[in-house]
């Protein structure tokens, strides 16, 4: 049993951290929410739509970025954007505007025609995130988006997440870096398929009398 009676609500525009040790059931939960797996029982609503009956609507309104970078290495930056824009039915005109704007913001204007394979890891990651929210989803799921990246790059990546949240996109992020847990509005901590704690980082630290999230996590996961 990877998930056992999970109950939680995520608010609009919130950064919701989903924590747990490896094998605690994070990935199973996120896969159910994205429609990659079916739950055996229970009610699930994503972006206000029921996951049994309104799958198509959900798919249009969510973004997803996995641990692996989800960009095509043998396609250029621009071609990747074109592909995802095409899949999500964004018109060519709108795509061109947004693409120019995005690349300017990321400072990657010159890399537009370069293959993804040749880009530094940090760039790939930022780009993967930007592509995941290119179609302005209501909610974006990030499955351990910062795996294998240095702290500085991770910090910069989180700036992008904050910006997305400010624009009204709900962010659902799984991680096992506890410093990242501090950046979230609220976090839930999973252990053996159950949610053991769910609150703001500040309140959790108070409750478990810990100075940082690391200690909170260790107390729960034990």
């Amino acid at each position, binding site marked *: 049993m990877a998930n056992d009676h999970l109950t939680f609500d995520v608010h609009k525009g919130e950064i919701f951290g989903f924590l747990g040790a490896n094998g605690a059931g994070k990935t199973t939960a996120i*896969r159910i929410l*994205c*429609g*990659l*797996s*079916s739950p055996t029982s229970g009610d699930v609503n994503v972006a206000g739509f029921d996951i049994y009956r309104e799958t*198509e609507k959900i*798919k*249009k309104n*969510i973004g*997803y970025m*996995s*641990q*692996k*970078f*989800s*960009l*095509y*290495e*043998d*396609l250029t930056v621009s*071609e990747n954007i*074109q*592909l*995802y*824009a*095409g*899949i*999500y*039915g964004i018109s060519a005109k709108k795509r061109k505007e947004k693409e120019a704007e995005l690349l300017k913001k990321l400072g990657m204007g010159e890399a537009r025609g370069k293959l993804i394979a040749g880009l530094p890891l940090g760039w790939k990651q930022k780009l993967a995130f930007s592509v995941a929210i290119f179609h302005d989803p209501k909610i974006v799921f990030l499955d351990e988006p910062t795996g294998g990246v240095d702290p500085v790059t991770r910090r910069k990546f989180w700036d992008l997440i904050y910006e997305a949240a400010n624009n009204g996109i709900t962010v659902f992020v799984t991680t096992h870096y506890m410093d990242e847990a501090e950046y979230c509005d609220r976090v839930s901590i999973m252990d053996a398929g159950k949610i053991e704690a769910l609150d703001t980082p500040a309140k959790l630290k108070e409750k478990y009398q810990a100075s940082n999230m690391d200690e909170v996590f260790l107390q729960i996961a034990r």
Partner: protein
Amino acid sequence: MTQLLSFIKKEFFHIFRDPRTMLILFGIPIAQLLIFGTVIKSEIRDVHIAIYDQSKDVTTQEITNKLLSSGYFILDKNLENTNDIDAIFRKGKVKEVVVFGSNFSEKLTKEGKADVQLIADASDPNTARLVVSYTSGIINDYVKKMHPNLEMPLQIQSEVRMYFNEEMKSAYMFVPGVMALILMLISAMMTSISITREKELGTMEILLVSPLKPGQIIIGKVLPYLLLSIANAFVIVLIGNLVFGVPISGSFILLMLETILFIMMALCLGILISTAAKNQMTAMFISMVGLMLPTIILSGFIFPIKNMPEVLQWLSHIMPARYFITIVRGIMLKGVGILFVWKETLILIGMTLFFIVLSVKKFKIRLE
């Protein structure tokens, strides 16, 4: 529709940017065709023979001329007695000795039968088989033309003991075989690899999360390979025709339709493999061992099905390539229409439907 188009565009980028894929798609088919082609060509060109003519009359002279002008044989020596036969074989250059019996012309007109003995060097059984069948073919042809009213024109005794093999008569057998092989390779192997690659890289999840429907993903994956396979089939038929002179006796359109049917079958097999394989290596391995080898060995492409052990003959019935090769040979070489290959066509359609149903069932819309 635009969704699907942008997906297909991406798929073409993958193909055109990967040197290995390009090599498999365009290099291997031509190389295989040329290799198989030249190998078979050299076997029946310029074979050295010797003739021991005990009659030396008009008929034997004409048959000799026929043999030598066919382009298959070169006369090495005229023998004068039986003892020379053994000696000349030992030298190794001469592959066949044609022995005409005495009073050949006279016997033929009076008794309706005369003796020709074909003795072949069977140290290379394949060549021997071919050489003997070519020689007897030419002799029979000649006698039939000269004496159309005779039913059993000539008694031909062959010293090489072997089953007469009709399939081996045709020098053109390799084109249909290579066609089946290459289409199997491109369609099944490349599709299964390209789908498993997406699984391996994690991009498949992104596609499944997106509004693309599973059907669209499959079509987007398969369509580029369908188009490229058709192009390839076209090139193979063209090279076969222009370089090796393989005729297209039947309807070209029917040939292409049957080819598309076979490609569809192979594509479905590719999808099926991709649902079973977790990564590209496995997909390649299954395609190689599970599809390529049986296609080469069991389809009748190289080894005649009639000569196989019974178990393998039975196994060959489930080889789609077997039916395709029969169809292509029929259309290209014999010039037959759909009336003669409808059974094979129906079997291929059945197999295609079976694989479609099975792979759609197994294609995991929701990855576990």
